[in-house]
């Protein structure tokens, strides 16, 4: 089982405390993500962004949430046989988890290298597969945790604080 963890230094203790305690969320949302469903992929992330916008969250935070979440949603559509996105909105942060049905990531460290991609031609023709998805998530998230193994499922979790 491979695990990758990135936490921004500014939010390390708060993010780790959150994951230990996992309090009840104010708002939670669930979306199905279909394999290669590029018509609907992105709807979940747009919905999370709109909900946060209605709550008056800062536009720069909204953009970071939307970009990180969208990249992760596209990854599930492009690389897995489908999965689910669950978003949990709190007073001070948003926590989003993407669980897919495989086939897993053989080498997570390699997958984090900008420019590395296993995307097929269909995915590339749509403008994806530049190998920047995971680095882009890391750049915008305060916490990124990935658990995966070849032949298994992938769980990607991200946290973004509002301040």
């Amino acid at each position: 089982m491979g695990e990758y963890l990135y936490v921004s230094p500014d939010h390390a203790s708060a993010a780790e405390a959150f994951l230990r305690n996992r309090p009840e969320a104010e708002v939670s949302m669930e979306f199905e993500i279909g394999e290669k469903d590029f018509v609907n992929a992105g709807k979940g992330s747009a919905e999370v962004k709109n909900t946060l916008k209605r709550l008056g969250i800062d536009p720069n935070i909204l953009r970071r949430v939307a970009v990180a979440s969208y990249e992760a949603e596209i990854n599930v559509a492009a690389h897995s046989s489908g999965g689910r996105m669950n978003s949990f909105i709190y007073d001070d942060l948003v926590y989003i988890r993407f669980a897919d049905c495989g086939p897993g990531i053989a080498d997570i460290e390699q997958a984090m290298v900008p420019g590395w991609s296993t995307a097929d031609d269909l995915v590339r023709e749509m403008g994806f597969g530049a190998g920047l998805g995971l680095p882009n998530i890391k750049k915008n998230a305060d916490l990124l945790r990935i658990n995966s193994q070849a032949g298994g499922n992938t769980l990607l979790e991200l946290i973004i604080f509002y301040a």
Partner: protein
Amino acid sequence: MTLKEICSFLEAEPLTRNLNLDREVPCAFASDLISDILMCTKEPTLLLTGLTNPQVIRLSDMIDLVGIVFVRGKMPPRELVEMAEERDLALLSTKLTMYRSSGILYNTGLRSCKI
């Protein structure tokens, strides 16, 4: 620079109805890679691209796009134009290449978006 001026400089055809051609365009970015577009767009931006799939419109749900110019004579499918109209997003199409379009707009003073 307004959308109207951009149409004129690029000999571009508006694709969406009820377009506000007086809308100001502060800056632009050109790419066919979605991750690049997401990474580089942090302010209201005009996007020049050759991509014509629905995810290009979905992008505007994530980042602030003033409009999209399809280059090299690319024409998006009807449902994509409808998606843009629902979002009040301006779509233009030009026969010029991405390089030429970018050069023309840059020379007339439209700056690159801050990255």
